């Protein structure tokens, strides 16, 4: 497939509803090149964005109206934040300011004219933290309500392109997950096969957070961190879900050279539906008879138990000691090259 050039540009309209704005804030952290340069060279035009556009008040309402009527072509509708159905199904927990109409209604109208509909972040995708606990706002995602299909647009929804809602899940999303998705869409290179089971773009969801984690060696030997700030693997005691979380966080750094596990705390699987309700405290690993309940993806339980008892028996002293320290207390041995 060749990359199509779109001389006429790719029109994006961005709305925010029941979220924290963090995905936009994360988007602004795009680098090399910076966000505006990236969008420019891809021919992506922001028709309106709540943080970046000049139009406010009446001008913004007129613009939204023109798009909804089809007067302005809408290539991608991006929605950030969960859609709020409460109270009592009225949607009035979020009224689009200046319009008197619930945002969920605006989103339904705009989705109907959009070539593509993109959920930016786990809230817009599945409900996210806005839907946690008692879910006071009756929040849901664009096309999912937690793990179940449905949500604000309904399971049957397809945008004009024939695709379902594309879920750039993440709390927040990595800036490049957004820019690359929009660039692929504008180049005509993202189809139904490029989405995973929860309709996340596979270019980042076909990886696990565990891949490339600097703690992999500790993992291999089950040399585990016992408290936050220890260097060991955080799977056994500190709630790390990196072996089950679909994202490339450790092979595609955040903010320079970061990632959750590089920062010294567990991956809480923020790209997954219902990560907001793990059923246990986030930073603790639930266990039965000393064995973690959530085992690594694709790993039979018997194998895991056999391998980990073997691994524990074979843990090198270096890893055993470093795992429970906040710095390397025992460096790898330097071997004399001549005698190798």
């Amino acid at each position, binding site marked *: 497939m060749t990359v199509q050039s779109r001389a006429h540009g790719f029109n994006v309209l961005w709305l925010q509803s029941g979220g924290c704005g963090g995905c936009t804030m994360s988007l602004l952290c795009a680098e090399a090149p910076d966000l505006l340069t990236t969008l420019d060279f891809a021919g992506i035009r922001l028709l309106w964005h709540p943080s970046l556009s000049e139009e406010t008040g009446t001008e913004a309402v007129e613009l939204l109206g023109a798009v909804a009527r089809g007067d302005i072509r809408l290539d991608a509708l991006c929605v950030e934040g969960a859609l709020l159905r409460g109270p009592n199904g009225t949607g009035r927990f979020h*009224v689009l300011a200046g319009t008197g109409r619930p945002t969920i209604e605006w989103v339904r109208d705009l989705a109907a004219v959009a070539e593509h509909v993109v959920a930016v972040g786990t809230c817009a995708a599945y409900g996210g933290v806005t839907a*946690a*606990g008692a879910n006071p706002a009756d929040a849901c995602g664009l096309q999912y309500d937690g793990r179940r299909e449905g949500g604000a647009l309904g399971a049957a929804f397809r945008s004009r392109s024939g695709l379902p809602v594309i879920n750039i899940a993440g709390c*927040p999303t990595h800036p490049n997950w957004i820019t690359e998705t929009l660039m692929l869409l504008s180049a005509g290179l993202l189809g139904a096969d490029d989405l995973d089971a929860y309709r996340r773009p596979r270019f980042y969801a076909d990886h696990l957070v565990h891949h490339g984690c600097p703690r992999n060696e500790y993992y291999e030997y089950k040399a585990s961190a016992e408290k936050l*700030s220890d260097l060991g693997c955080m799977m056994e005691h500190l709630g790390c879900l990196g072996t089950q979380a679909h994202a490339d966080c450790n092979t595609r750094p955040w903010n320079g050279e970061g990632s959750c596990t590089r920062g*010294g705390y567990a991956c*809480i699987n923020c790209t997954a539906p219902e990560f907001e309700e793990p059923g246990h405290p*986030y930073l603790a690993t639930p266990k039965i008879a000393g064995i973690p309940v959530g085992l690594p993806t694709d790993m039979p339980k018997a194998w895991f138990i056999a391998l980990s008892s073997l691994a524990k028996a074979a843990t090198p002293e270096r890893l055993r000691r470093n795992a429970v320290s906040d710095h390397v207390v025992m460096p790898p041995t330097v071997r004399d090259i001549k005698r190798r």
Partner: protein
Amino acid sequence: MRDASAKDGTARLIVGPFNRVEGDLEVRLEVADGAVRAAFVSSPLFRGFERILEGRDPFDALVIAPRICGICSVSQSQAAALALAQWQGLAPTANGRIATNLLVAAENVADHLTHFHLFFMPDFARAAYADRPWFAAAEARFKAGRGTSARRLIEARATLMHVLGLLAGRWPHTLAIQPGGVTRRAEPRDQMRLLATLGAVRATLEQTLYGAPLERISALADPRELEAWRALGPDGDFRLFLEIAADLDLTHLGRAYDRFLSFGAYPGEEGPHYPAGTFADGVLGGVDEAAIAEDHTFARMEDRAAPHHPFAGSTIPDGFDETGYTWCKAPRLAGQPFETGALARQFMDGQPLARALVAAGGGNVFSRVIGRLIETARTLIAMEGWVRALEPAEPWCAHGTNPSEGRGAGLTEAARGALGHWMEVRNGRIARYQIIAPTTWNFSPRDAAGVPGPLEAALVGAPVQEGETTPLSVQHIVRSFDPCMVCTVH
């Protein structure tokens, strides 16, 4: 929306969506004789984070609370960590405290820059100002999504966020900030990397924003110096702002009550780097935390009988309430509304220019923006010192025990001002969690006595030109507070 049906010549304007603020905002204006006569500020989004937190493990607050807001996520983390630390009776390690200060400071500086370059200044590049002498310069630098300064800022901001990437894994929504310190230790090589990062940000600010060393901005003491800067000072966004502000008389726009509040920012061994305090009726004072209470009269919330201290407060939305016009509660200190933010912090710290500007014209559009610009320079300088003060060989994170009953308050400062979390634990679970965000103070509705919140007061008298549906003066005033609406209601 304009509705000019009222008989007494008062027109009603509904202004929204109000963009280039964080979150959702609608303002209802009553306009007569070319000026705002009364303003009603509404936060039209309710999510209910305080309720979401109830029933959870107390440490889950470190995951949930930052997600209140993607722009001041780290400040929310710090407030939650402070509340947990008080509940645990735990003090952070020195490294942990300093590293947390660096994380919060990086976010606050980034916020000030985002506000100035992306949210506030683009209004001066609107066609309505095309006849002003400074317009061409403002348009080139600040046109929304295109201005040269805005572009450079977005790059510098992403670089600044490497402080978070390195020390906290990522931004926003890190779990690195814990009650006992931070989860990642910095090595000496990290200190060097941090200094390089801060140096790069310093260079951009000195070249583009200020046109001068940060130390020179930090030392500004007298409004006459600003006059001289405007006439003869180095070229930069700062000078352009001074020129625009003088031409549009921004010192006479958007004055509220001149009552200021700061909870104190960046804890140190001998108290916070920017101290806590209040200023009301011309008198400086301390913060009497027990005198804080939230009033629900005009918030669409139950429990309207009397104001509650946050340790006794509730968040029960009332979707059918017709008296209420916002989801935002009305926080009061000793019964009075207070303004909070960078100007308040710099004022409490005795920064001479902040003091002089408040003495001359109180809190107004100009002094609020200058407060942020001074603070940006001062905070970046402080950050360089904090990086050097880290001691890699010393401990980074202390660990405590979790009492099954108890409570804790976490009071800190976000970029926009005083932020407080109040948590009560029963049977090892969060039984009550109340939050008062800076914009809740600034954009509060009226209280039982009918007293308007600070922004509502600041908008009275704002000029409205014939035919304006979204008055520019109103936009300048609203944005001068750097509102964060998702925090306001949470």
